[in-house]
């Protein structure tokens, strides 16, 4: 991963935003921030920490990162917790909770807690709170906990009472808790492979590689083959659109070899798409530059999810000034103000109507694409995320609603 410097962001967000970050960093120069999560590679949390920590260091904020240890049994249990917090039924037994507590106990014994502020990510390290002394502790929940299984939520929230603050990604994830809760949305990095500006030639090459002609408008959904992303609904949407507007459909996502359900969904999608040469099902290995190119080649981007944690693929598309039609779920309505920075939908028919509108009114599509890009620039770039985290750290020492720094 390329390590960018803070100054690299100045042409994108402006000098004032960088100056504000420096002002805030100055107020934190004597604090040590210790992040703790469960993995240093793979997954969204590790990715964001890998990007953020060098930038914090650039700012002069002493930000470090530790990882808890755990065996296969522990991570099998925490995977079940993860699903249960998302509201999926899971068969949890007493021994699952015991495994969690035993591994937590080992980490409590072994981990060096040195931070003035402990930033604990997700449920895996939540029990470390037992090492709290006179420092501040934050629990950062990256999971959609709007409708968790009560048994697991009761277990996890039992650790939260001693934390100083919790952070959620969307308003709907907030729960009644005996501590301060903050809303901090995730972000995209405009300089990453997935989002940086790329030459049109690269876009052409990628489309040629996947044999998708650019002869007619392209409607695209980027997501793994998962029922919660409703890929079958996307094909139904396309068919309703296709009756009136000639176009191609791209469904692009990761391979699903390790996920039996994913393979079944992919099979359904292939069957549904069979016989239509204008539907392109692209099974891709992780390749951010190619995703970037496909998004840029698209006329309209769809995100017809049934459920979303935050749905950063929407922010990625909007950042490329693409008009987006997306379901009104999870963090998507934070990114799309209906009819201003995209179109929200609740059904296949609604999604199809919106796609037709955008294909038939290119000026309107351009306008909401531009609005969408500005909305992302102001609210969902990495620099805003850095700012919110620094404000959060400062809020731990200031209970008041108006803080004079």
């Amino acid at each position, binding site marked *: 991963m390329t390590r960018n410097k803070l100054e690299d962001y100045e042409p994108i967000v402006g000098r*004032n935003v960088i100056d*504000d970050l420096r*002002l*805030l960093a100055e107020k934190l120069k004597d604090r040590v921030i210790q992040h703790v999560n469960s993995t240093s590679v793979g997954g969204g949390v590790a990715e964001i920490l890998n990007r953020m920590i060098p930038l914090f260091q650039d700012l002069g904020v002493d930000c470090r990162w530790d990882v808890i240890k755990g065996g296969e049994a522990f991570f099998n249990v925490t995977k079940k917790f993860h699903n249960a917090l998302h509201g999926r039924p899971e068969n949890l037994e007493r021994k699952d909770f015991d495994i969690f507590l035993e591994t937590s106990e080992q980490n409590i014994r072994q981990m060096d807690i040195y931070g003035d502020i402990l930033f604990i990510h997700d449920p895996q390290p939540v029990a470390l709170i037992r090492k709290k002394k006179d420092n501040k502790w934050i629990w950062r929940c990256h999971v959609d906990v*709007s*409708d968790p299984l009560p048994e697991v939520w009761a277990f996890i929230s039992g650790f939260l009472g001693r934390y100083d603050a919790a952070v*959620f990604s969307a*308003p*709907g994830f*907030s*729960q*009644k*808790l005996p501590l*301060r*809760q*903050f*809303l*901090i949305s995730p972000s995209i990095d405009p300089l990453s492979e997935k989002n940086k500006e790329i030459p049109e030639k690269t876009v052409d090459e990628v489309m040629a590689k996947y044999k998708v002609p650019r002869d007619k408008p392209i409607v695209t959904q980027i997501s793994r083959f998962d029922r919660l992303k409703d890929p079958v609904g996307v094909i139904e949407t396309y068919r309703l659109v296709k009756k009136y507007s000639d176009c191609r459909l791209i469904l692009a996502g990761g391979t699903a070899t390790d996920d039996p359900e994913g393979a079944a969904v992919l099979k359904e999608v292939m069957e549904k798409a069979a016989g239509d040469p204008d539907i392109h099902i692209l099974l891709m290995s992780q390749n951010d530059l190619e995703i970037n190119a496909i998004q840029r080649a698209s006329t309209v981007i769809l995100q017809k999810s049934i459920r979303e944690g935050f749905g950063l693929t929407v922010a990625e598309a909007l950042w490329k000034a693409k008009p987006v039609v997306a379901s*009104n*779920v999870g963090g998507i309505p934070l990114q799309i*103000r*209906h009819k*201003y920075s995209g179109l929200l939908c609740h059904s296949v028919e609604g999604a199809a109507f919106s796609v037709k509108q955008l294909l038939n009114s290119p000026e309107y599509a351009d306008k909401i694409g531009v*609005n969408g890009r*500005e*909305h992302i620039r*102001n*609210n969902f770039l990495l620099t805003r995320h850095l*700012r*919110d985290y620094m*404000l*959060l750290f*400062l*809020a731990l020492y200031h209970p008041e*609603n*108006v*803080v*004079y*720094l």
Partner: protein
Amino acid sequence: MNRAVQSIKTPFRFFTRLHLTELTGLKAASLVELARLIREVPGSSIYHHTHRFLQQHLYLSPEPPNDFAYWTTGVLGEERLGEILASIDTMQFKDIRSLREKISETLEDYVNAHPKVSLKFADPGEEFHFMKSVSFVLPTSHSAASLEDFTDILGKITIDSIYYHIFEARLRLEKPTNDFSLWLEQSCGRPELANEIGRLDPYTRTMEGLRKALLDILRKGIAK
């Protein structure tokens, strides 16, 4: 030496305001719940929901900066009520308490006049979630000792700084008018400019549109 420089008593120090959103865990699925919670939540929550739009959507055309109106129209489909809530004239309220009272009364009057609306509920996931703003006020490095300096700085200062001196100072910090008008009148000896800026309705402009309107007034004032 020109008139503006001569009359300055105290330089204007520009501050900026950054904000963090705090969640309350409270949500409403109906108008009755919304009205009840509007009376109960902290003032900083009312402030958040009547001002958030200005900052998050500062590039869009002027839009009712009011989450209550947006939710009532967009989720419950009560367009008439949404229009009434959106057109509440925030400028005429001196503090959050009186603004809260007006919003509450508007909702309660509407529910009393249209009892059937109390049977409407938002779908799960589309409830109104109450949040509040935590403001962090910081001094910037900019200070103006003349009307010309002030105008130059206003042209390049962050939108957050303009927001702080125009919106936050008046309604949240309960000053009699915005900071710019106070300084123009008290330190700069230019009451006519203070009045003109005080009469602007900043809620019906984009933030960049507001900056332009302020600069137009000030440049005309300098030229006089």
